[in-house]
């Protein structure tokens, strides 16, 4: 074991880890906006909204993320006929991760909304509220609480899946490792170090989610 190399590599890998966190956070943030809209679409009575939303979820959950990344990084400039700007890989990476996590988050929201008792909607509607008002003031505030833990899990999944964007040269954690391996030919030391860093990230987030879950559970009855 080349311990010296491992210590020396820490700063570079940490830089990569920061980018990994940023990518995942951006993906989950945009994914939440996408997911909420798609969930609303899926729950809509209008077929014209429900069908495309369902197709969206099917496509992004049913095809490999790697293929989605290639489609957006290589495919989009070709079909839309534009020359990718210099840092296009970041844009493509965030778009691909966001679209993908949006599909999973849509299902999280759908389940959260559907878990709220029907009587809540009925009570709101019986008071003269529109479907949209009932959703906004009665259903969503209750559903949001319930989706915090699964959203945390989605963030953890995204931390790991974001390693895939290393294929389009985004210097996140895995890509930083690859560069060092290319220079030093010490794959075991470096990839173990990369793995441990991912582990620290995911364990930290999962502790955080557990803590949030416990705090929400305290107020859950209200």
């Amino acid at each position, binding site marked *: 074991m080349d311990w010296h190399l491992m210590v020396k590599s820490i700063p570079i890998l940490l830089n990569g880890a920061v980018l990994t966190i940023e990518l995942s956070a951006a993906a989950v943030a945009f994914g939440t906006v996408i997911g909420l809209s798609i969930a609303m679409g899926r729950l809509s009575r209008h077929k014209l909204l429900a069908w495309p939303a369902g197709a969206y979820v099917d496509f992004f959950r049913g095809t490999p993320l790697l293929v989605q990344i290639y489609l957006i990084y290589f495919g989009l400039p070709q079909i839309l006929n534009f020359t990718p700007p210099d840092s296009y890989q970041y844009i493509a990476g965030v778009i691909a991760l966001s679209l993908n996590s949006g599909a999973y988050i849509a299902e999280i929201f759908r389940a959260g909304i559907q878990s709220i008792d029907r009587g809540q909607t009925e009570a709101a*509607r019986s008071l*003269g509220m529109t479907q949209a008002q009932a959703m906004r003031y009665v259903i969503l*505030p209750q559903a949001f609480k319930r989706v915090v833990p699964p959203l945390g899990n989605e963030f953890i999944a995204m931390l790991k899946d974001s390693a895939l964007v290393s294929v389009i040269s985004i210097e996140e954690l895995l890509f930083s490792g690859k560069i060092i391996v290319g220079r030093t030919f010490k794959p075991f030391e470096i990839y173990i170090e990369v793995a441990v860093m991912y582990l620290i990230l995911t364990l930290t987030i999962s502790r955080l989610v557990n803590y949030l879950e416990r705090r929400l559970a305290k107020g859950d009855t209200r």
Partner: protein
Amino acid sequence: MIRVNNLYKHFGKLEVLKGVTAHIREKEVVVVIGPSGSGKSTFLRCLNKLEECTSGEIVIDGIPLNNDDTNINAVRREVGMVFQRFNLFPHMTALQNITLAPMKVRKLDKQEAEVQARALLRKVGLEDKADVYPDQLSGGQLQRVAIARALAMRPKIMLFDEPTSALDPEMVGEVLAVMKDLAREGMTMVVVTHEMGFAREVGDRVLFMDEGIIMEEGPPDRLFNNPQNPRTKGFLSKIL
């Protein structure tokens, strides 16, 4: 106030209502009784379109419900409903439960809505519970807040769907007392219930439903003491 003509409701192949006709006058208190599965709750839920009827006509205060031009939300503002399982909003205090719809639907400002809500809480005997969340309230208190919530829209009609069926026996009285007050004030009420004492004391008219139709109707004294239909007799003999 409420006119129902030849109302049918199917759930798939199951026929729940098979031609219900009923007319309810302003300020009348009508109590609907009958065995479970007789369609009485479905009938009530058709009156504010929580259930869509399959065929037939419902006119509320001159407005036909199954007309495409009718804004159902406008009708529901005038028709309050109280549910068996309360359905209070658990993420809001009692006060917020009551002020939400007046603020969002009637566009009252917050202060007006709160003044009104506190008055209603006083009316149902819960003025000290304004800032309490539903999980801190007993069943009887929950149902009284639910009644106050419905009243906050200043409805012309109140529908009660087995309002005391989910309550412990010692809490039934406090809810019925609020309903009696309401009846005395002249509220038009349709009450689905198993509380025969309430029906006798407060009801102007009792409808006995069975197998999706109104089998018999009449003033409570007549219907309870001298039922004509053998079904009514059978039902009453089992529960009285």
